[in-house]
């Protein structure tokens, strides 16, 4: 930005006639040496900048891993733009910081997507009994905040309890439009299938209940994710092997993605996450379950720290009825491919053209 163009800058609309100040010149004679307010501020800025740099140098050398990391993170690029060296540097930095913070050896993985892999998920909607074990397995694996105060407890999977419909003789003619009405609900079924958004605070003595059917939802890892489309800083993106991930450091916490997601999959760290040292999972992935900070969005990433090393996600492993299935969509022998081939499959809100890689099926 040129300094001497200041009088014109404010009058950009009608600069053609009013602007009379000559353009900046490199000739020292043309620029009489005088200290303007702008020059002064500039010099001051330089000075404070250099002193900050000095502080930075001191802080990066200091023993306080947390401070050093935070400082270095301010100048770190978007994860996708980082060179392998920068990624490695960042990884080491985080490992040092987390190990210091949680009092154990924490590994931050940066394994990239492998070619020939496209992860897919299938869930047997008829088998789910609504026991919420997946929800809590996810919390145990993915270092979510688990405090008790409002906003401190974060769970990525929601299990919706839907009311069960029945096919009954006496209700066969119900549900059709009456008069000039528009058909809004189901026909011949009662109830139409769900109670608005479903219940997810249900807490009976024992599940499954006779009059309920359960539908777990989490991030669908869309092929055309609306959250990625709206992110103003492009911190959330689809990885090469399928999952939609977030570079937590680059997230500004604007929550646009939360508004855009039609599946209510994203969670926001309103407070500083509460993560007890002994419950922290030390096997983490940079784009996955590494501890988050306050003011960033997080969501399911299909346990990237596991699935990049070919292990099933945590929710799949604990489902007591085996309703959850995970596999490589490009491999015709995988369980998900077999399900797509053989079973009746649907995707949630398919009409939105988000193309989820999460399939619901039934026997």
């Amino acid at each position, binding site marked *: 930005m040129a300094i001497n163009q200041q009088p014109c800058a404010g009058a950009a609309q009608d600069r053609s006639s009013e602007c009379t100040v000559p353009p900046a010149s490199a000739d020292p004679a043309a620029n009489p040496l005088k200290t303007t307010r702008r020059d002064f501020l500039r010099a001051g800025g330089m000075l404070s900048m250099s002193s900050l740099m000095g502080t930075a140098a001191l802080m990066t050398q200091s023993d306080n891993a947390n401070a050093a990391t935070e400082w270095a993170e301010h100048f770190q690029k978007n994860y996708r733009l980082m060179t392998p060296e920068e990624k490695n540097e960042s990884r080491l930095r985080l490992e040092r910081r987390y190990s210091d913070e949680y009092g154990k050896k924490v590994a931050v993985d940066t394994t990239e997507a492998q070619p020939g892999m496209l992860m897919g998920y299938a869930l047997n909607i008829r088998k789910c009994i609504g026991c919420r074990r997946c929800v809590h397995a996810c919390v*145990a*694996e993915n270092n979510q905040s688990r405090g008790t105060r409002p906003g401190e407890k974060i769970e990525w999977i929601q299990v919706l309890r839907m009311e069960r419909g029945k096919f009954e003789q006496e209700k066969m003619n119900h549900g059709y439009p009456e008069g000039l009405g528009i058909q809004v609900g189901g026909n011949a079924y009662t109830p139409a299938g769900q109670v608005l958004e479903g219940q997810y*605070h249900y807490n009976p003595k*024992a599940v499954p209940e*006779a009059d309920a059917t359960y539908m777990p939802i989490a991030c669908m890892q869309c092929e055309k994710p609306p959250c990625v489309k709206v992110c103003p800083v492009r911190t959330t993106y689809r990885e090469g092997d399928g999952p939609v991930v977030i570079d937590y450091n680059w997230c500004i916490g604007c929550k646009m993605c939360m508004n855009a997601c039609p599946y209510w999959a994203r969670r926001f760290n309103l407070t500083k996450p509460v993560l007890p040292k002994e419950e922290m999972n030390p096997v983490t992935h940079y784009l996955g379950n590494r501890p988050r900070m306050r003011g960033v969005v997080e969501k399911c990433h299909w346990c990237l720290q596991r699935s990049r090393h070919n292990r099933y996600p945590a929710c799949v492993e604990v489902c007591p009825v085996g309703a959850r299935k995970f596999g490589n969509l490009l491999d015709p022998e995988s*369980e998900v491919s077999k399900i797509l081939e053989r079973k009746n499959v649907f995707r949630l809100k398919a009409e939105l053209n988000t193309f989820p890689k999460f399939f619901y099926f039934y026997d």
Partner: protein
Amino acid sequence: MRKIAIASVILALCGGTFYVVSAAEKAAEPAKEAAPKAPIECFESRKGASEITQKELKPGWPNVKCSPTTGAALWYGDPFDGTVPMGKMPQLDIPEGKAVVKPRSEKLALMPLCGVSCHNGVGPKFTPPTLPKDKKPAPVPTMAAMVPDLANLQHGRGRIWCLDCHHTTQRNKLVDHYGDPVSFDQPQLLCGKCHGDKLRDWRDGIHGKRIGEFVSTGKKRWFTCTECHNPHNVQDGARNRGFVQLQPEPSPQLPRGMANADHEKLHPIPH
């Protein structure tokens, strides 16, 4: 101005001293050691099938994490902990060591006794085996006391009885199509006799559950039929939707300022 400068210098010095002190306190903290606790045990798919005792595989890395509310297994540190090779399965071509199961025979307390003390293949009933004509199990009081499910066998709606699944003479074995003994660790060879569709889905990973490595060539722990289904009461009348009822894990946090979740039940059905 000068006063302020002096004050700030003093403050900084104090801060420095405080920092040093707190650092020294921090260093002293890890000396404390955790007292040994009672062993935590949790169940996997159904209660009574395969309980796991929690232990540390390496410091800070348990083999399993158990739910404090329901006692269910919530997280596996090592999915292959305590497993053995699954053995041969017809139409299932898996390289050796890539398919493992958790043996159930060692969990069945009566197993070693069954074949030797009562059903040892000798005695008047077994030479030659005289089987009842009507397939109704005769209530032997000892047997009924040991396995309570037998009093009301809920499997096959009265069409099957004990010796359709259990071997006639080797009572600590099951029996397959051709009368050959089958291990209790491979119940799929037996169950597939009738439930062929489920066996086919199970082989392809659609029915049932496998944990470990998800790629089709990876090592997996397979859950066998009896780890999830109790063969003696699969159709128990008290059940809903074909599953034994169990206690759910706690529900999510309510929104700020909301005392209960009754609002979820108040919506009328919109039609």
